């Protein structure tokens, strides 16, 4: 069971800024093997669907998106990831994002004993004040080191 600060559950953390950059979009599109020209155009390149994962570059630690819990990476599984897209995100945009730990709950696992599920949510606003996306993730911490 990870350490949980119940007082932080559901509470939005501090806002961070994320600049959407042409080169970063190119690098990301190449990493996911997507050659679509809309990602490599010089002006206003579109961000690929999973590009918001790059918020990791704008924080000290991705764990800040779920600040209510301290997790052990050796026992951590990524369960689910969800994106809701409300408006396009393009190179040149400046996004403001904030995160909260939506929920933490336990389930009995078949192999790893008790599993703890941590649901995190991040909201992204652009420079015009429009909410452009939500990203939600489910992390699972197993009781023992994860084995296949």
């Amino acid at each position, binding site marked *: 069971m990870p350490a949980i600060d119940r007082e932080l559950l559901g509470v939005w953390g501090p806002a961070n800024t994320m600049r959407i950059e042409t080169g*970063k979009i190119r*690098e*990301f599109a*190449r*990493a*996911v*093997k*997507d050659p*679509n020209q*809309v*990602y490599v155009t010089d002006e206003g390149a*579109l961000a*690929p*669907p*999973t590009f918001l*994962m*790059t*918020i*990791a*570059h704008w924080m000290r630690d*991705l764990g800040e998106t779920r600040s209510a819990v301290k997790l052990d*990476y*050796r026992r*951590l*599984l*990524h*369960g*689910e*990831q*969800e*994106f*809701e*897209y409300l408006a*396009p995100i393009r190179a040149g945009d400046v996004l403001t994002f904030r995160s909260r730990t939506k929920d933490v709950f336990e389930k009995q696992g078949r192999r790893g004993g008790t599993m703890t599920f941590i649901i995190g949510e991040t909201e992204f606003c652009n420079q015009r004040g429009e909410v452009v996306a939500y990203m939600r993730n489910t992390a699972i911490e197993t009781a023992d*080191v*994860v*084995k*296949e």
Partner: protein
Amino acid sequence: MSERLVEGAVIPPFVVENLSRTDLVRYAGASGDFNPIHHDEHFAQAAGNPTVFGHGMLTAGFVARCITDFVGAGNLRRYKVRFATRVWPGDTITCGGRLTRRYEEAGETRVDGEVTATTQRGETAVTGTFTAAVPAGG
């Protein structure tokens, strides 16, 4: 011309052959996800794994490409993935899926779909669902 994005339409597969450790390192750098379990052999083995394994979100990125090749980039409205089994260096990953519904919502025509990524062993690595806007003429 008849509509292409209809209920039951098959999303053409996108195949990644022979996933490499370089692919994993490239994704770590691009995404900023430097969990060492995806690039540090010693760390991965100390955690009980035979070797490093792929980021779930790398496979989810391949699946996203498969979807947007079919529905058009910029048309996704929602995308959700669940991680089932891991993918390993040397694996061949096949992404694909089908459309499950076509309907009107929020002033546009939309489709829902189901997608998967499977390995050459027949294991499902990722399952997902999505909603996309249908482009003009689609």
